[in-house]
């Protein structure tokens, strides 16, 4: 553009020179002035171009400094301010996301519902439920647990079970309500109502058992779960080897086994004394062997209870050949001695009843294994034998036998279906078949405690 203007100016100057040849010097001066003006314009335009180039370079520098996350030198104050604000906002967002809410101080609540359909071809005298076909909500359980303070934890278990005498109305009862220490080294003191760790499966709630039915020998000797009101001290001896010892004193032991009628005077010798020792051995990474000995004793000379238990558990948990394929073999053997006072009603009215002390000793136990094929399926058999120590049972024919097979399918950790078949051979010589389809779900908060390992 500038070149064209210069050329045009020169042409005009030449043409004017031809028209008026006599005034040459004046014309030359005018031409000189025009050329100077044009040069000044050119210079100004060049300055504008240089200024634009400088601004473009500045913007490019800012862009590079932002995209390469290099030190922000050269970036404008506005960009810096926006970055700082973004940093503050993300820090606030992390704080909000990780803050504790007031609800965090509330207790955790978990629940379990355990239902079953049962077919039984025996007589009702041998079982708690009616013979034939029977749908049952075996238990609807609520579990609450929480830290009390830095020194104690507590938990409570309410379980509603059907009451056959009341048209199967579910009656809630307090199964466990206990607190225990968390601040003592290697020792835990527990008090309240809870299931003492007598044997291997006695402290486990029905819905957590590896089978549908509790082994009959445990039901008979312990009285369902090993529930008791009392206090217990448990210590893990701080040595390289696992050795756990437990001792406790309780009103009774066994959910359905009150040795002393409620309301009667209870002296020291009427209390139930509990001791246990449990140890364990690993054989390589894949094999664990546990064994323990438990003792329950009511030392009273009139109503004595002397129950000794030996538990053995073997676990095969192979590494790296598939998820959760494993095997558990469990056994409990018991020796039970009971002395009870029998009341014999008088033959003739007005005569006082007579009291006879009877003592019976029996042995029993169960053994089972459960093979976990994968995360879903497990199968296993169980054999349970025991001598009934009921003084009314003829000691010559008092052996009860139950043969069981079970298959479990786990949809997830929190729901499962189980089929169980039991073949009963009762002490009176009668035989019966029993089958269960059990459906159990767990919901809400949950913990994995050591007893359920």
């Amino acid at each position, binding site marked *: 553009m500038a070149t064209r203007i210069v050329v045009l100016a020169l042409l005009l100057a030449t043409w004017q020179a031809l028209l008026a040849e006599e005034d040459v010097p004046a014309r030359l001066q005018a031409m000189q002035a025009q050329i100077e003006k044009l040069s000044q314009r050119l210079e100004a335009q060049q300055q504008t171009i240089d200024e634009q180039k400088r601004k473009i370079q500045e913007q490019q520098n800012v862009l590079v400094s932002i995209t390469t996350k290099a030190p922000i030198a050269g970036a404008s104050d506005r960009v810096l301010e926006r970055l700082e604000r973004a940093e503050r906002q993300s820090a606030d967002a*992390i704080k909000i*996301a990780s803050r504790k809410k007031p609800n965090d101080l509330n207790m955790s609540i978990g629940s379990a519902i355990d239902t079953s359909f049962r077919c039984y071809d025996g007589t009702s005298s041998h079982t708690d439920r009616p013979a034939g076909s029977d749908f049952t909500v075996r238990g609807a359980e609520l579990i609450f647990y929480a830290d009390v303070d830095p020194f104690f934890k507590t938990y409570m278990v309410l379980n509603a079970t059907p009451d056959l005498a009341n048209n199967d109305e579910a009656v809630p009862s307090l199964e466990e309500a206990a607190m225990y220490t*968390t*601040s*003592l*080294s*290697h020792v*835990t003191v527990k008090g309240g109502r809870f299931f003492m760790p007598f044997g291997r499966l006695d402290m486990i709630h029905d819905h957590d058992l590896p089978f549908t039915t509790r082994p009959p020998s445990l039901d008979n000797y312990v009285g369902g779960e090993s529930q008791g009101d009392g206090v217990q001290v448990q210590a*893990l001896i*701080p*040595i*390289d*080897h*696992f*050795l*756990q*010892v437990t*001792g406790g004193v309780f009103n009774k032991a066994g959910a359905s086994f009150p040795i002393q009628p409620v309301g009667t005077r209870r002296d020291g*010798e009427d209390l139930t*004394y509990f*001791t*246990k*020792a*449990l*140890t*364990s*051995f*690993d054989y390589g*990474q894949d094999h*664990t062997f*546990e*064994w*323990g*000995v*438990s*003792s329950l*004793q009511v*030392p009273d000379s009139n109503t004595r209870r*002397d129950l*000794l238990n030996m538990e053995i558990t073997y*676990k095969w*948990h192979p*590494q*790296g050949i*598939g*998820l*959760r394929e*494993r095997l558990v073999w469990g056994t409990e053997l018991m020796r039970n001695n009971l002395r009870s006072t029998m009341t014999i009603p008088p033959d003739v009215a007005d005569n006082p009843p007579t009291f006879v002390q009877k003592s019976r000793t029996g042995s029993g136990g169960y053994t089972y294994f459960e093979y976990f094929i*994968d*995360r*879903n399926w497990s199968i296993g058999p169980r054999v349970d034998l025991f001598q009934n120590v009921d003084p009314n049972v003829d000691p010559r024919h008092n052996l009860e036998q139950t043969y069981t097979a079970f298959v479990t399918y786990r949809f*997830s*950790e*929190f729901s499962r279906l189980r089929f169980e078949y039991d073949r009963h051979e009762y002490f009176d010589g009668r035989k019966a078949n029993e089958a269960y389809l059990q459906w159990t779900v767990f*919901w809400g908060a949950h*913990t*994995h*405690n*050591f007893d359920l*390992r």
Partner: protein
Amino acid sequence: MKATTLLLPLILALTMLPPNAGASEKSGKKLMVIASIPDFADMAREIGGAHVTVESMANGTEDVHAVAVRPSLAAKLARADVLIEMGLENEHAWLPALVEVCSNQKIRSGRQGDIIASEGVVPKDVPTNVGRSQGEQHPAGNPHVNLGPDMGRLMAQNIAKGLTANAPEYKADFEANLAKYLEKLDVKEKEWREAAAKLKGVKFVSHHPDMAYFADFLGLEEVGTVEPKPGIPPSSSHTAALIEEMKTQGVKVIVREPQYSEKLANEIASKTGAKVVKLTVMVGGVPEAKTWIDMIDYNIQAMLEAIKG
């Protein structure tokens, strides 16, 4: 009362104890460190040096969420001065039960002896919809931090900080060892970033959603998991849908973690033409992964091999 009957359990148990049951491996003023997984045991050895005795609870081939609760682990914890765990509820199914039963005050949650290796991480996959219908979720976010090649620095620093808090007399040594370890990590991280350039955009599926931090570093793209939801075993319908998705998206790599079924991964591979690559989720999961750095090396090399075609 028959005192012998009540004492019988203890007497019998004592007779069954091995001859060296009471022998302690502690020597001098060494700090007894128990790590939940071998990755942290390796780092604790690097940083703690001669001042620590280190043992791991899990070995590399187990499912990190379902380590067998062996009583012997409680005995280990009972002797510990320090416990190193991942955090983010990674070990929630087995570690709290063991910590509770061992009653060791030093390592209880929140105490000085309880070191959380993932502390300070910005967690990935934090669920917006928390509930059991979503499977076995980790509400605090994906806990498999140890698989992130760029997470070594954070974990090592947390471990060093925790060891120093428990044995301040060795602070200088711990700091020197940490500095050396971080130098090694810097060199390795540079190598890993070079490898990442070759893996950027590679699509894959894994069995469990445990590759989030690994994939993020390498720029991999996770298309799905063999499990329909975390911890839920795969159903045939989910597997069929996954196969279709893999075909649609052209997924060429199936990551199989050592603790999961090889059979199912191979079946999916045969139907999609994808390659099965075994990646370990812990140190010791494969023989090559003797240290944490080895593990990351192995996993990246395995991915590079898988895309060679």
